[in-house]
C-alpha cells in the first residue's frame, strides 16, 4: 500500500457553477472530498466602475453605483449620495432622511431574504428560498411603485431622492411588514434555522474567530457573526439612525464555536426582524411629518470645491465606504474609490476554506454572502 500514489486533483468551481453566487471561480486542490487549498479568482464581472466614475458628472455616478451590489442597490447609491453631500456641505431635510431610512431598511430585508434563502438552497433546502423570494417580490413592488424600477433604482440622489413616496405607501408598507413578521419570518425560523440537519451542516463549519475577522477586515453581518457588536448605524449614526431603537444582532455560538457559518446566517436572519422594527418607527415618524419637497436640496449644478471625503455607511453586506476626491475644476469627480465589504469578506475565504469538505465550501461562500458585482465592480 505504501507505493500507492496519492494525487491531488484540481477542481475548478465556477465561474459557471450553480452556487458560487455569480461569476466566482474557485480553484480547489482536492484530496478526495477534502479541500487542501482554495484560491478564489475574481474579476469576471469587472466593469471599470471607478474609471467610469471619473468620466461622468457627480449625479451621473449614481446609476453606476446601483450596478455594484445589484442585490442591494439602495444601499450603494445611499453611500455615494452621503459622500458627495458631505463634500458639498448639504444637509437633507428630516423628511428625506426618513424616506432614505425606510428604503435602506426595506432593501436590507430584501437583500437578507436573498442571502438567507439561497443559503438554505446551498445546503439543499429549496422551499424556504421560494418563501423568502415571494416576500422580496413584495418589497420590489413597493420600490417599483415609488420609483419605477425593481432592481436598479437610481433613487438616492445627491441632496434628495428621485421621487416622493406615493400616497398610501405607509399603509402598504405596514401591510407587508405585518405579513412578513407574522407569517414568513416565523415560518423561516421553523423550517430552516431550527432544522437539525441545517444546524449540523453549518454549526461548526467555517469558524472565523473574532481576531481573524478583524485582521481580515470583515464587516457587517460577517463580523457580527463572530461576536463583535459593531454596527455603523449605532456607532456612527447617519440619517438620524440614533433616533430609532434597534438591537445590534451578534452571533452567539448557539450550537458550536462562535463565528461559524450558522452564526453569520443567524445574524442576517435576526437583522431582518430588526430592520422591520426600524421601518415601523420610521413610518410612525413619517406620518407625523409634513410632506416636503424631496428635490429641495438637490443642487442644480454639482461642482464641489477642491477637497476629498471618505464616508462609510452600513450596507446590507457590511461597511460600504466611498472615497471621493474633487479637484474643484471640472464637474466630474477626480476619483471615486469604493471600499467594498464583499471584497474584504472574500479575502478571508482561503484561510477558512483550508481542510474543508467540498460541500462545506458551498456553505462557506453562502455564509460570507458575497455579491460578485461588488467585488469586481
Amino acid at each position, binding site marked *: 500500500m505504501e507505493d500507492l500514489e496519492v494525487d491531488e*486533483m484540481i*477542481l475548478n468551481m465556477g465561474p459557471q*457553477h*450553480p*452556487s458560487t453566487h455569480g461569476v466566482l471561480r474557485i480553484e480547489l486542490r482536492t484530496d478526495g*472530498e477534502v479541500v487542501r487549498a482554495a484560491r478564489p479568482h475574481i474579476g469576471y464581472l469587472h466593469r471599470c466602475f471607478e474609471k467610469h466614475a471619473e468620466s461622468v458628472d457627480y449625479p451621473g455616478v449614481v446609476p453606476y453605483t446601483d450596478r455594484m451590489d445589484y442585490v442591494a442597490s439602495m444601499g450603494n447609491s445611499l453611500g455615494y449620495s452621503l459622500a458627495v453631500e458631505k463634500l458639498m456641505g448639504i444637509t437633507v431635510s428630516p423628511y428625506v432622511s426618513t424616506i432614505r431610512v425606510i428604503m435602506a431598511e426595506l432593501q436590507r430585508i430584501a437583500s437578507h431574504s436573498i442571502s438567507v434563502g439561497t443559503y*438554505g*438552497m*446551498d*445546503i*439543499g*433546502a*429549496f*422551499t424556504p428560498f*421560494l*418563501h423568502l423570494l*415571494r416576500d422580496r417580490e413584495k418589497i420590489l413592488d413597493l420600490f417599483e411603485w415609488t420609483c419605477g424600477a425593481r432592481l436598479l433604482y437610481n433613487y438616492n440622489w445627491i441632496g434628495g431622492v428621485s421621487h416622493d413616496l406615493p400616497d398610501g405607501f405607509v399603509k402598504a408598507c405596514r401591510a407587508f411588514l405585518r*405579513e412578513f413578521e407574522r*407569517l414568513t419570518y416565523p415560518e423561516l425560523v421553523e*423550517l*430552516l434555522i431550527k*432544522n437539525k*440537519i*441545517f444546524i*449540523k*451542516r453549518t454549526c461548526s463549519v467555517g469558524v472565523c474567530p473574532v481576531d481573524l475577522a478583524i485582521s481580515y477586515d470583515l464587516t457587517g453581518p460577517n463580523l457580527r457573526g463572530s461576536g463583535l457588536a459593531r454596527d455603523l448605524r449605532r456607532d456612527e449614526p447617519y440619517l438620524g439612525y440614533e433616533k430609532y431603537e434597534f438591537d445590534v444582532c451578534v452571533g452567539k455560538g448557539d450550537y458550536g464555536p462562535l463565528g461559524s457559518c450558522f452564526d453569520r446566517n443567524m445574524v442576517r436572519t435576526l437583522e431582518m426582524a430588526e430592520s422591520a422594527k426600524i421601518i415601523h418607527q420610521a413610518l410612525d415618524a413619517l406620518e407625523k411629518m409634513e410632506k416636503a419637497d424631496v428635490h429641495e436640496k438637490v443642487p442644480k449644478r454639482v461642482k464641489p470645491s477642491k477637497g476629498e471625503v471618505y464616508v462609510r455607511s452600513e450596507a446590507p453586506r457590511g461597511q460600504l465606504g466611498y472615497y471621493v476626491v474633487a479637484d474643484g475644476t471640472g464637474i466630474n469627480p477626480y476619483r471615486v474609490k469604493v471600499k467594498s465589504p464583499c471584497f474584504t469578506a472574500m479575502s478571508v475565504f482561503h484561510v477558512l476554506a483550508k481542510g474543508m*469538505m*467540498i*460541500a*462545506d465550501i*458551498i456553505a462557506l461562500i453562502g455564509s460570507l454572502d458575497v455579491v460578485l458585482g461588488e467585488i469586481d465592480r
Partner: protein
Amino acid sequence: MDFTYSLLGALLGGLPPWARIAVAAAVPAVVLITFMAVGPIVYVYAERKFSAFMQDRLGPMRVGPYGLLQTIADAIKLLFKEAIFPGQADKVLFTLAPCLVVLGAFLSFVVVPFGSHLQTVDLNVGVFYVVAVSSISTVGLIMAGWASNNKYALFGAMRSAAQIVSYEIPAVMSLLTIVMIVGSLSLQDIVRAQAGGLQHWFIFRYFPLMPIVFLVFFTASLAECNRTPFDIPEAESELVAGFHTEYSGFFFAMFFMAEYTEMFIVSAVASVLFFGGWMSPFPWAWTQGIGPIGFGPFWLIFKSWSFIFVHMWLRWTLPRLRVDQLMYVAWKVLLPIALVLVVVFGALVIYVPGGFAWDQWLSWPLTALVLGSLVFFMVTAFRYRLRRAQELAA
C-alpha cells in the same frame, strides 16, 4: 404466473410450447415496461405540483388543463433532443451506463407481486433478488461518472458508490427480520403471511420494535434511490448535477426514469414487507376483489404511491446531509440499530411467535391516529393557503 398461463393457454392453445412461453414472457415485459415508462410522467407531475403547493406557487399550469400535459411535453422534448457526447468521453461506457441504470431499476419489477397471481416470477429468493438487482444501478452510476470525463461526475459517482455500499447493509439487515418471521424469501409468501386485514400487517407485529425496523429500512431506501436528504451523488448546489452532469436528451431521460422507477420499487418493497403488499387493509373479502377481478394492483400501487408522496414531502422540506454525516448515519446509527434488532427478533421469533398480545388492539387506533393527524395537517395547510390567497386578493 398461473393466471397469465391459463389465460394465454386458452387463447393460444394451438401454439407449440416454446411459442407459448415466449408470448407469456413478452406480455408481462411489455406491460411492465409501459408501467415503467408512463409512471415517471405521473410522478414528475405529482412532484412538481406537490412542491409548488409547499412553496406557495402554482407549478405547471400552461400545457393542458392544470398543466397535466406538461410532463408529456417534457418527455417528448427530451426524446427529440440531441444527445451530446463530450469530446474526451469513453463512448461505449457513456452509452452503456444509462442502460445499466435503467436495467437495474427495471429488473426488480420481475418479482413485485401486484396480486395473488399477478407476478412475473415468484422467485424463492425474491428479497435477495431485489436487493441484488437494484445494486446494478450503482455500477451504471459509477460507469457514467467515469466515462463522462468530468470531475463533478466523478465525484458524484464516487459518492454514490460509497453511499449505496453503506446503506445496503442496514437495509438488508432490516429485511432479515421480516424474513425470519415468515421463514421465506419469496415476496408472495411474505404477503400471504400478512393476510386478513390491517391488524396482521408486519408493521404492527411486535409493536414498538417493528416500526423501528421500518424506519431503518425507509431511511436506507431513501439513500438508495438518492433522494433528499441523501441526494449527495447529484447534489445540484455542490456537484452541478453529479454523475449525469454531461448527459443530455434521451440518455438523461433514462437516468430520470430510472430514478423514479427506483423510488417506486423501494416503495413497493416497503409496502410488501411491512404493509401487506396487495392485501386490502379491511377484513371484508369484497375489498380484496369481486369475482374474477382482484383489487391487488390497486392496493399495492396505492400504498407505494403513498410512500412516494412521503419521499417527495421529505425532499422539499429537508436540507441535504454532508458526505461524512451521511456515513455517520449509516454506520454509527442505522447499522447498530439494525444489528440489535436482528438479534432481538431472532429471540422473539423463537420465544414469542405470532407477536405480542397488544398488537391486535393497537393496530386500528394507531392507523386512525396517524391518518387523522395527516388529514388534520393537510386541511390546516389548505386553509392557511386559502386564507393567504384571500388576503392577497383583498
